[in-house]
């Protein structure tokens, strides 16, 4: 893993080979350790150490990019030359923005040395706990434990330089009965590996599997739903992509106003809905930059502007739209942080209290295979997975078969009537977020799925 000094020295070396007026560099050093298991046995494990450097050179609006994973003088010199050769043959990029002047990055580091040091010995007890939980109930466990650590630096020829370190860990488990007739799931992401509790993951997933036996076929239609935090996050994280000012101004988003303009400043949601980006939240490990563009990976580095908090929806009002540096300059606005590290603020109610508040509805563990159907309404389709339960008169009365839904998370938040305590979640797809359990009315299920 590269220290700040090492990263700085490598970047300075690469920049010294640049002959173009613009050269932007990001350097990463990452370590990843993982164990995968299925059928109550470990199936694969791995440990990778991967350095990489991305170089973008530009002249007269023409850009060329390359990537290199060896940092000796010869490799760096050749890589910079390659980026310049590619720029020479590229057409000018009409949306190229000027290189950043030196930035003042915040002191932002939530790096767990324990996570970075962890290898299989740290993960195995938790995986064993999941398998023991499955075996002792005559069930079958599958899952994945991964921890990662990364150092990253960005710099350019104009003298900007930033350095950061991040760690993350996550355990997920699916528990099925031997006949494949029931399934339960649980997941736990954490910055520090000590935050992972295999026994707790096992207990939740086993309990779900045991309770989701012989699910009843219910008619599709509109239901009040109680979404567990992962289910909330699965849908609300999709809204991050929808916050782009450009899409809104061009009429392509739910934030487009009919006839032109955007819905920024409008109160679209109940008073208690606040959705923000917060890279400083201690449940996240974030880099000190993260705004102004999608370069260096969505949500990782943005356009290289300093990381900052940003409210997208505040007390029900559309507070801000995401402006990258190009669109901000065109629209005469300031660029904003990227819509990553999302937090949907919650309340104080427990999941049990939310369930107790519902006369008739469905409790949903999580969603799967969610894809955009119509970006102008944010409508998405997908399916429930690993536990759906009927709620009657405030009590869970039995399992229900999975459903396909066609539903906009925007409409879902408009129809939300209660929020519980937020936690960090990561479902089957996407980066996850910090989300509470919610109660929402009129959630649209359109067909039944036989899948278990």
């Amino acid at each position, binding site marked *: 893993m590269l220290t700040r000094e090492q990263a700085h020295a490598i970047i300075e070396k690469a920049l010294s080979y640049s002959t173009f007026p613009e050269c932007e560099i990001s350097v990463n050093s990452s370590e990843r350790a993982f164990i995968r298991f299925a059928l109550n046995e470990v199936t694969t494990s791995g440990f990778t150490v991967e350095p990489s450097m991305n170089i973008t050179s530009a002249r007269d609006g023409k850009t060329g990019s390359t990537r290199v994973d060896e940092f000796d003088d010869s490799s760096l010199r050749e890589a910079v030359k390659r980026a310049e050769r590619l720029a020479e043959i590229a057409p000018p990029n009409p949306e190229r923005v000027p290189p950043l002047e030196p930035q003042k990055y915040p002191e932002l580091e939530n790096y767990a040395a324990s996570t970075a040091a962890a290898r299989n010995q740290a993960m195995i007890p938790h995986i064993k706990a999941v398998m023991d939980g499955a075996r002792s109930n005559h069930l*079958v466990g*599958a899952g994945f434990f991964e921890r990662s650590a990364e150092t990253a630096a960005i710099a350019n020829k104009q003298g900007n330089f930033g350095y950061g370190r991040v760690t993350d860990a996550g355990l997920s488990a699916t528990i099925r009965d031997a006949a494949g007739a029931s399934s339960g799931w649980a997941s736990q992401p954490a910055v520090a590996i000590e935050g992972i509790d295999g026994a707790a993951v096992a207990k939740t997933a086993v309990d779900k599997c045991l309770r989701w036996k012989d699910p009843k076929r219910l008619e599709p239609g509109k239901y009040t739903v109680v979404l567990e935090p992962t289910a909330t996050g699965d849908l609300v994280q999709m809204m991050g992509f929808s916050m782009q000012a450009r899409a809104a101004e061009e009429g392509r988003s739910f934030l487009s106003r009919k006839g032109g303009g955007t819905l920024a400043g409008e109160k679209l949601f109940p008073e208690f809905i606040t959705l923000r980006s917060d890279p400083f939240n201690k449940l996240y490990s974030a880099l000190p930059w993260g705004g102004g563009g999608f370069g260096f990976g969505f949500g990782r580095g943005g356009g290289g502007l300093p990381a900052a908090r940003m409210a997208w929806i505040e007390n029900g009002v559309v507070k801000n739209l995401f402006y990258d540096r190009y669109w901000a300059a065109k629209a005469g606005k300031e660029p904003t942080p990227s819509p990553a590290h999302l937090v949907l603020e919650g309340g104080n109610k427990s999941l049990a209290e939310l369930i107790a508040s519902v006369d008739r509805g469905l409790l949903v563990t999580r969603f799967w295979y969610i894809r955009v159907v119509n970006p102008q309404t944010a409508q998405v389709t997908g399916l429930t997975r690993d536990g759906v339960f009927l709620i009657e008169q405030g009590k869970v009365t039995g399992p229900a078969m999975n459903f396909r839904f066609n539903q906009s998370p925007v409409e879902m938040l408009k129809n939300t009537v209660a929020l519980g305590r937020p936690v960090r979640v990561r479902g089957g797809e996407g980066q996850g977020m910090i989300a509470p359990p919610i109660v929402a009315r009129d959630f649209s299920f359109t*067909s039944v799925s036989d899948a278990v």
Partner: protein
Amino acid sequence: MNLVENAQRIREEVIEHLNAPPVTPGKKDLVLMPSHLWLTIHESIGHSTELDRALGFEANFAGTSFLTTEKLGKYRVGSDLMNIWGDRTTERGLATTGFDDDGVKATKFPIIEKGVFKHYQTIRDQAHLIGEHESRGCCYADNWASVPFQRMPNVWLEPGKEGTSLDDLIGAVDDGILIDGDGSFSIDQQRYNFQFGGDAFWAIKNGKKQGMISRVAYQSRTSDFWQACDLIAGPAYWQQWGAPNDGKGEPEQINSVSHGCSPARFRQINVIQTD
């Protein structure tokens, strides 16, 4: 890709699509072009016939499969017209190779024969688990740091009889939709229930292609859908499409795969009106 040649047509279609009336939902006959049907093949047949999924090795992420091992050799997935091949030897196929990452020579094998499920996609580690004596050459890792595992070969649908035309498919439809290109796509973790949109939709009334319609998606169950297939256009219409970014495994790995087919007709599929 003939981008310049197609630009004017696409422009006109975009304008027509934006002003097209929404579909009236209900059961309709669908005529699906290769630019669209390849993805339905990929999701409903390509993934459901992966042996590692059927055995439970992918249970935590991609999921399992409705095609469990006791169905091998006897389960009817589709109509008699349905013949689907796993094939790593296809000309210009994205998953075409000489040898797989186990070192097994690339093969071509029937996955569905006359509508019946005949073979899984297999690798050396797992073929013996279903009593087979050799792998079908479907092992692949996307990177030096990735563990090789079972990935999808090119999976393609055999064309119909020589001389069967697109007009033949459309001509016997009273109330249907012609769908071209990809749209939204989603399928459950056992590959039963799916929903597909598309890029362009034309109404078919009384055997004739009409103007464009909009806000179309169809939902079905894999075996219901393929059993509703009653005509496939001939070899002259066969085209190969594909995905460069098919995801599977933990850590997730990417695979590139091609799917060829001719236009095909599916009777009385549930069509919904999207937002």
